[in-house]
């Protein structure tokens, strides 16, 4: 039990010792990069609706997201996305670009372990939890709506 006291003391000492970095630059970067990605999405969406007026809004959004996913995957493959991500943090994680990057990056990384058990199996090491939790949560919502 003496150890626990010591560990607690040490942990709070370390916490205090960590140099406080200014959060504002990274918050600002996340803000404007994230904002720009959303504006890009809006532009895509508007252009799609302008060129193909017969399309439903829902399909237009689907096309927009697919375009953004494509660009993020391409930038990941080219080795550029991790640099933008290191700069913008949540600015690229929170938009759908982060989802795309989280699938493409392990696919690239685990290619050497084979197509089946490397690339295909490891593709979802980060995105897996997202799809699972989203699906389960949406099913729970569905169940609730069934009875309401």
């Amino acid at each position, binding site marked *: 039990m003496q150890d626990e006291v010591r560990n607690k003391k040490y942990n709070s000492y370390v916490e205090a010792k*960590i140099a406080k970095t200014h959060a504002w630059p990274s918050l600002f970067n996340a803000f404007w990069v994230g904002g720009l990605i959303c504006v890009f999405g809006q532009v895509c969406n508007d252009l799609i609706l302008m060129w193909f007026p017969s399309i439903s809004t829902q399909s237009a959004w689907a096309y927009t997201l697919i375009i953004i996913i494509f660009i993020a995957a391409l930038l990941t493959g080219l080795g550029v996305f991790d640099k933008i991500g290191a700069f913008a943090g949540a600015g690229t*994680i929170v938009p759908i670009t982060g989802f795309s990057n989280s699938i493409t990056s*392990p696919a690239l990384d685990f290619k050497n372990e084979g197509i089946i058990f490397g690339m295909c199996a490891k593709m979802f090491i980060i995105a897996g939890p997202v799809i699972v939790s989203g699906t389960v949560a949406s099913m729970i919502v569905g169940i609730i709506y069934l009875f309401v």
Partner: protein
Amino acid sequence: MKRELGQQTVFFKNKPKIIGHYSIVGPKEGKGNLREYFSEIEQDDFFGQKTYEKGERVMIERALEGAVKDANLSFDDIKLFLSGDLLNQIISSSYAARKYDIPYAGVFGACSTMAESLALGACLVDGGHFETVACATSSHFSTAERQFRTPLELGSQRPPTSQWTVTGSGADIISSKGSGPIITCATFGKVADFGITDVNNMGAAMAPAAMYTLIAHFKDTKTKPEDYDLILSGDLGKLGSEILIDLMEDKGYKLGLNYKDCGQIIFKRNQNVLMGGSGCGCSATVLNSIVLKKLITGEYKRVLFMATGALLSTLSAQQGESVPGVAHAVVIEGEKNE
């Protein structure tokens, strides 16, 4: 002959010497502070191979071959190869050893492997069991990142307390014959765990182990920090070495300007490595470049080299376990100060 023993320290009577050394690093390290001291700087992260893992293997092979050459020996003279690295089941070392016709014993002490293998090698040579032993270790940024952290292309920010795994390998030849810096004693460390669970804060996790080893060493050898030209810790990084200084001061030892940390000196400040370098290769390449060179020229007379290791795995981290640390130390003295 009966060996003189401290609590944790072994004293060597027969002067095991480091008769050959070699260091090889990747491109980023080659732009760092010590670029003039490394034996070889490779500009290709893959070391001419298809995968990073294979590249790391080649790195150990080149380090070992370089050290053997540096010692003016042939592979027939090496009686035992001690090596370890960070990858699961220490594959880099074992697969490198497969290439040679020498007995091999794998050692694992995470990032403390260099000091651990030197200490073990010196014991074996000093005890007369082997005449010449080779010690090596390596780490590679990309293989470590893949195994311990995230895919390389994932666009995430590195936490401010994290360190940068050094791509590099170092090898030493220890022998009872020949000439070179002498290993005079070795202190084996105990595993210490002060309950740090943040895997991105290795410095804080390893600092307590470093403190215990240093104190045991000073007590066993009846020396003080001032008695050394250089006290070199492995890869505590900026935060970890500051913590170590605080911890030592608490126990009544003052680490002065002669205390340095490999993780802090290997990279330049503007290389975006946050707390500094880490990995087996960090302490191995620093020791096998600037430190041994200065020991040979006589600029340093007595160096306390202590490498620290964080003994975690991805599984233990995911299960919420804290990170235990270990530290081993060897004292290396220049041949000239006799």
